[in-house]
């Protein structure tokens, strides 16, 4: 004990341990333990009142019931589309903030992107509903402009869900993109022009390779947020939304079938992991590099 108190190496380790303790506690108590519990839950089957046996029945049900894996795939596809649209929309915004706006204009634009996030997600989504519902602002405007004869219901469509998801995710794409574009040396762009490249060639061969870690980081964050989003698809898509997190909610809360819900949860985790790995493979990025650059 005395030796430990004197030896500076021990001091260092003790300090490191203490500093890491809150993070480790948080990770262990709030993430790993519940997941272990859920994993155990998902691997058992109720055979009688308070009687459970280990089985893969929950996972079998998922594959046997077309509705479940249909919703599962649909959630994945829409999430991928939403991520891609967010990237397309965020890139020019990030470019303007990082490269074109000077000084205060850049910070101002950044704040404009941030301001919607001061309002809770529920309120923001309800705002969209006010705009888009049949008796809402946008359908009324369309009628006034003579584009539609009757007010059109704009809610409860896949496109509406996409709009909501992109809107919710935009900031999480803009932030890593801005930081990766800011680190791009402007003379590289000038050099590319000087060597005969046009705008598209410069974007493809200089800007995108440089920003790749930022793009990948933004896509991973947005994809995970979108896949796990519950509120936006439910409110904007209504009964038609068929989002996988709704299925999980239904199993846990409505059906009180925690075993099935836990299995769905793990399937969603597996899906997001698989797609993130696939994305990293396709873009040739390494997870460590991406996270370091964010």
């Amino acid at each position, binding site marked *: 004990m005395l030796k430990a108190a004197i030896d500076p190496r021990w001091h260092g380790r003790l300090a490191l341990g203490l500093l890491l303790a809150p993070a480790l506690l948080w990770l262990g108590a709030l993430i790993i333990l519940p997941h272990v519990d859920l994993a155990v839950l998902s691997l058992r089957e109720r055979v009688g009142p308070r009687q459970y046996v280990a089985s893969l029945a929950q996972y079998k049900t998922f594959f046997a019931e077309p509705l479940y894996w249909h919703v599962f795939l649909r959630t994945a596809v829409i999430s991928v589309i939403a991520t891609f649209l967010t990237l397309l929309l965020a890139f020019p915004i990030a470019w303007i903030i990082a490269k074109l706006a000077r000084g205060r204009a850049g910070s101002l634009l950044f704040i404009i992107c941030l301001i919607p996030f001061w309002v809770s997600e529920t309120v923001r989504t309800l705002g969209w509903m006010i705009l888009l519902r049949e008796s809402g602002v946008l359908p009324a405007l369309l009628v006034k402009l003579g584009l539609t004869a009757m007010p059109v219901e704009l809610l409860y469509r896949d496109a509406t869900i996409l709009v909501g998801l992109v809107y919710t995710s935009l900031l999480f794409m803009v932030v890593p993109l801005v930081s990766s574009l800011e680190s791009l040396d402007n003379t*590289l762009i*000038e*050099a*590319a*022009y*000087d*060597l*005969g490249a*046009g705008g598209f*060639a410069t974007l493809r061969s200089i800007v995108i390779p440089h920003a790749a870690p930022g793009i990948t980081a933004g896509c991973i964050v947005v994809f995970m947020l979108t896949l796990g989003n519950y509120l936006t698809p439910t409110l904007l898509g209504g009964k038609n939304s068929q989002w996988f997190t709704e299925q999980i909610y239904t199993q846990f809360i409505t059906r009180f079938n925690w075993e099935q819900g836990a299995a769905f949860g793990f399937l969603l985790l597996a899906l997001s992991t698989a797609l993130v790995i696939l994305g990293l493979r396709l873009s040739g990025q390494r997870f460590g590099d991406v996270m370091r650059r964010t």
Partner: protein
Amino acid sequence: MSTPDLVADAVVKRFADHVAVDSLSFSVERGSFFSILGPSGCGKTTLLRMIAGFIAPDGGDIAIGGKSMRDVAPNRRPVNMVFQQLALFPMMSVGENVAFGLARRGVPKAERVKRSNAMLERVGLGNAADKRVDELSGGQRQRVAIARSLVLEPTLLLLDEPLGALDLKLREHMKIELKQLQASFGTTFVYITHDQSEALVLSDHVGVMSHGRFEQLGTPQDLYYRPQTPFVAGFVGANNRIVGRTTHTDGALAEIATTDGWVVRALKSGAIAVGDVVEVFVRPEVAILARSAMELPPDQPRHSGEVQSVLFDGANSAVLLQEARTRREFRIALPQTGQFSDLKPQEKVVFSFDPSRAVCFTARAGSAGQDA
């Protein structure tokens, strides 16, 4: 004579509060090495960026290879630039960097690889094509940056202080290498720098720039031996500057007295009348140092002084004197004979210089009161 590769005709560029390039006209002969020398903020970078096409002139015209470059985008000009920080693409290998411009021109891959490898061979980097840019040393990167531009066979190669980031030893080495490269390729180089030694060593012609204008345009020898303005005399090479009033003129020479009574003689540059305030410039190597007046050439006016400090720098060693009466500083290059190796501070010495090798100019506005 063939058409010059670069002709600037009354080129003007204004920024909000000042004129960066002020109605500048000059031309650069095919195959020559032209330098623009000036202190930072003199407008040389602006001029270079206008030639490259990154900024448009407010007035005048720039013609490259006989064609006006008005409204021609940088990627369509027969000009390539070596950037100050080189701007090699870190996301590409050395070979890809060199082949980048060829790819943009639609040269097929096999041909591209062949030509970029041949170019790397010529700059002495034959085996570096697959290396990453950050695996190269400073001097090697320099050569890649030049190879990347020269592989496109531009009419004009622009170099924006490319040696600025290198350490002294490498800079000296790259100077020689650049000159040899230019000679072997025969491409017209336009080089900007604030380092007068780079400009003098490398160039066929140098334009000395200040406040958006050329003070003087000529060969390095012209600038050094026959400066036409006090700015050039002060900026190119080391010089002793003495400000005084003309007391007497005698053909090509003038006699000048400082306010505190030191009298020197120098060659007149331009019209100088008795009573004019002038700046006299005497190069350190023009003055002759001696321990006794007997050793000085008999036909030169003599001055005496006291050694203030000895500035030993090998072949560039000099001694800093104070003129005996006025305590004004005067710098004299030490001869390589070793005759003055035992010179000590506070030692009394005499010196003289050939008045026809010193030059005087009518003082610039506002400089009359300052003493060198």
